[in-house]
């Protein structure tokens, strides 16, 4: 079919209206031809002979009458080996390649190949002629870093296919044919190692979705022990500016125990991405001995890059995540910030003159947010393996007030709420997740009752703290004062974690369970401290010992020694330890 063409009849911001006759479809990609530049755009609404398109580039200088070429394709990304370690913009343009070809600035109307088509991959077949396969099933694999990258039957193929031919083990490029299959009617199809998938459609080439229950170990104590995230689950991190959302996501992207991390820097500062770009290739992944970059893909559409591409970037990211999940891997996707994505939708909606909802966000904001998080999940694949895609998004609420549409819509659909607090950030209590307001629907790997008791202690301690502001220490009973000190103790030695200390930055599951038991022992002990000065002194000392303990590696001989000092101090100050 000959591609459709049209002509521009209106321009307003990044919205262009185009008159067109032939068959066009919603979310189809079109190119505006401006000299040798091809400006990518997407149909977002169709009227009578008119396509409304959001342009992924600056519209400066466009004229009425400019030619538009429709592609017949939905907005899609290329899938295949070699995605890992890449840094893409929101439309899967490789940024380092663009930099090499065009220097400091992002050129307009240039599209580069997302994957290297000349690189050879060592293919090992896992099917033979005569095997019957369906979409998503593996035909073989190539090594990509430490992973066996599965070469799968393209996800858009419907029905069963019989393998007629498969390439011998050997080196191939992603465009070489590695298998031939025929469908039920006998029609032959060539399959290579790479294919495209439309980003706004979920990849569902698996057997079934299962309910996520296994904890995803993030190595952040306050998360894993108090507000856990499940593999295949969802969480959100709302917080006012400067509360620590981005730093927390960076910590998670380093320490989370997953196979693959996808970072979507969506409408935020370019400088923050640079830290990842420059540091990840230098940092070792303790699980694999390779660099962190080897398990990472960065989608980077920062705040000054075109806003329509920002809208697309989260879909690009989630599609790549779903792709690796299809291989039986655990993938963690983090988007910073989903509010910028929502704002991109708002800008577009305004240009389309849709009836606005609250704070001018479109009425479909909630369903879009829900759809996005719905693409997470734990799935059982056709071969029985299990893969997961966990999604975490930061939210940047206007005025830091969580009663706004994006935060509220997100809270309705996520499984864990890690709310950051301005007060905690100002007091440098990091990570600044609010321990009394946050919640999680997923199970933790420590005892539920113990966690509940610890939270209760925190609540009561905080109540006493509030009271003390009014009545002073003098007006507070010894028992209450001890409660207060215990709450503070739990906060400073367990909830807070030093991201800049090699050891403390990431706390393993074993370690968390071990340390939490010790913390609990302190919380439950009725200390013989009838003098407030003495009580404060004791808890200061205990806190110092614990914090130092946090800085000692578990396999270090010092670890046990420090534990003994803690034990000794507790015993010295408790009369009847187990009686509380």
């Amino acid at each position, binding site marked *: 079919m000959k591609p459709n063409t049209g002509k521009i*009849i209106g321009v307003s911001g990044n919205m262009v209206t185009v008159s067109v006759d032939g068959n066009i479809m919603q979310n189809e990609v079109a190119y505006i031809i401006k000299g040798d530049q091809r400006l990518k755009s997407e149909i977002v609404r169709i009227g009578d002979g008119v396509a409304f398109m959001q342009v992924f580039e600056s519209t400066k200088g466009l004229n009425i009458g400019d030619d538009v070429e429709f592609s017949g394709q939905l907005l899609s990304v290329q899938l295949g080996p070699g995605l890992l370690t890449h840094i893409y913009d929101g439309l899967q343009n490789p940024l380092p390649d663009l930099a090499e070809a065009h220097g400091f600035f992002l050129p307009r109307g240039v599209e580069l190949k997302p994957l290297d088509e000349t690189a050879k991959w060592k293919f090992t077949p896992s099917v033979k002629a005569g095997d019957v396969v369906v979409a998503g099933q593996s035909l073989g694999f190539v090594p990509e870093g430490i992973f066996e990258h599965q070469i799968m039957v393209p996800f858009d193929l419907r029905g069963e296919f019989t393998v007629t031919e498969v390439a011998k083990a050997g080196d191939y490029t992603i465009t070489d044919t590695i298998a031939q299959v025929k469908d039920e009617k006998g029609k032959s199809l060539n399959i290579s190692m790479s294919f495209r998938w439309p980003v706004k459609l979920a990849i569902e080439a698996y057997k079934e979705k299962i309910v996520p229950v296994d904890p995803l170990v993030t190595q952040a104590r306050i998360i894993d022990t108090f507000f856990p995230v499940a593999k295949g689950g969802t969480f959100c991190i709302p917080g006012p500016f400067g509360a620590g959302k981005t730093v927390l996501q960076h910590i998670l992207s380093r320490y989370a125990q997953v196979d693959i991390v996808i970072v979507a820097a969506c409408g935020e500062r370019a400088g923050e991405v640079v830290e990842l770009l420059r540091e990840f290739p230098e940092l070792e992944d303790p699980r694999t001995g390779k660099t962190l970059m080897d398990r990472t893909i960065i989608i980077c559409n920062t705040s000054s890059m075109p806003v329509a591409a920002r809208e697309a970037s989260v879909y690009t990211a989630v599609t790549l995540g779903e792709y690796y999940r299809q291989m039986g891997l655990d993938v963690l996707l983090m988007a910073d910030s989903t509010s910028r994505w929502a704002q991109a939708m708002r800008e577009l909606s305004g240009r389309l003159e849709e009836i606005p909802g609250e704070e001018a966000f479109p009425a479909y904001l909630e369903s879009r947010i829900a759809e996005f998080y719905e693409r997470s999940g734990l799935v059982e694949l056709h071969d029985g393996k299990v893969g997961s895609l966990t999604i975490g998004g930061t939210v940047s609420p206007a005025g830091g007030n969580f009663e706004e549409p994006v935060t509220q819509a997100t809270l309705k659909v996520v499984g864990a709420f890690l709310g950051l607090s301005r007060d905690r950030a100002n007091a440098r209590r990091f990570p600044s997740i609010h321990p009394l307001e946050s919640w999680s629907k997923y199970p933790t790997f420590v005892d539920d009752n113990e966690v509940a008791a610890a939270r209760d202690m925190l609540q009561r301690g905080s109540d006493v703290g509030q009271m003390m502001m009014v009545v002073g220490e003098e007006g507070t009973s010894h028992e209450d004062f001890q409660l207060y000190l215990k709450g503070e103790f739990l906060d400073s030695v367990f909830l807070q974690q030093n991201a800049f200390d090699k050891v403390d930055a990431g706390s393993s599951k074993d370690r968390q369970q071990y340390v939490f038991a010790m913390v609990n022992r302190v919380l439950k002990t009725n200390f013989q401290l009838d003098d407030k000065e003495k009580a404060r002194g004791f808890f200061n000392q205990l806190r110092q010992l614990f914090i130092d303990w946090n800085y000692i590696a578990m396999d270090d001989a010092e670890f046990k020694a420090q534990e003994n000092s803690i034990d000794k101090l507790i015993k010295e100050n408790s009369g009847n330890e187990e009686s509380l």
Partner: protein
Amino acid sequence: MRKVYNKILSISGNVITVKASDVGYEELAEITTHRGKSLAQVIKLDGDLVSLQVFAGSRGVSVSDEVRFLGHPMQVTYSDNMLGRIFDGAGNPRDKGPQLADEMIEVAGPSVNPAKRIIPKRMIRTNIPMIDIFNSLVVSQKLPIFSISGEPYNELLARIALQAEVDMIILGGIGLKYDEYMKFKSVLEEGGALSRSIFFMNTASDPIVESLMVPDLSLAVAEKFALKGKDVLVLLTDMTNFADAMKEIAITMEQVPSNRGYPGDLYSQLAARYEKAVDFEGAGSITVLAVTTMPGDDVTHPVPDNTGYITEGQFYLHHGYIDPFGSLSRLKQQVNGSDSSRKDHRAIMDGMIQLYAQYIETEEKRSMGFRMSSWDQKLLKYGQHFKSQMMNLTVNIPLEEALDRGWQILADCFTSEETRMRTELINEFWPTNGK
């Protein structure tokens, strides 16, 4: 020769509409009215209807005035001869100097490829201890001063401009009061910095639409100089006026407002400007310091709020002091480590702030009538010293001297153990005349 039109179909707010063909989006036009000439920019194309925002405002524009399209988008002069000169928001000289047309450059050009950025690592010394020690300014940083009217934010800006170690200064005035503008000029003149400065000045009595161009003009010129190897400091005051001007246009264009009348793209618009801050590898840099006044002293107001989400920290100017708590330079840790600064820098920064926080608590207790212990007395003394010798904005000393002064203040108020400083640093830096 470009087409000339003599029929304006509608005038609404500062936006006019004409019927025209072959006009590019964001193209400029020149409108000749009985008041003179003004630039206008295309903000919407709808078939053969072209909407333009008129820089000088639409007041006095008549339907038969001449509209001549220029065939290019907004441009600005770029040349070394701009140094020491003052331009208006349309890019024309507002001093008595000659028109410059050496080289015209595009404004609001494309963004820098993130893959080309580098991790910032050079400190900009300002000789203001509250900045240099506690929240160091870093080359390529974008940082606003959050303040309210009446605070000396423009004085602070002028002082930083004068003392910062940069090659040149570009001052963008947006709705600036005339006397403030004159003050800037005389401060830079007296400090001998005028010859390395360029002004783009839109005062409160100048057309509002022109103020919208000021950040773009300033940053476009800054970018050119930076690519040529210059470290450029761009000062923008007041960005709240900029946001308000955008609000006005948005309302005229009947855009649905998102929050208190501001357009839904306020964040993207502000970010497009602030993100111009950059350190070009192998060339120069742009650092952006802006003033953002907070209507009603409310940091959750859309302008400071969106700004905070974009910039790399903020300085709060309160009661004439840079507030040590709310203020934050998010890039400071890149430069205050022992490699790029003195090795006691971080210790002094953390230690003095912690003690100051304790002083604030003590001050609260005192005002509530609680008994003051001897430790409290020490803190009270410390608080006073810290305010008068560090926070006071008239203090003007280099970083090293400020660090020495920090030790002296500590020694005047506390024993060395009470400061909880590491022994190694105490041995090296504790003043011999201290306790």
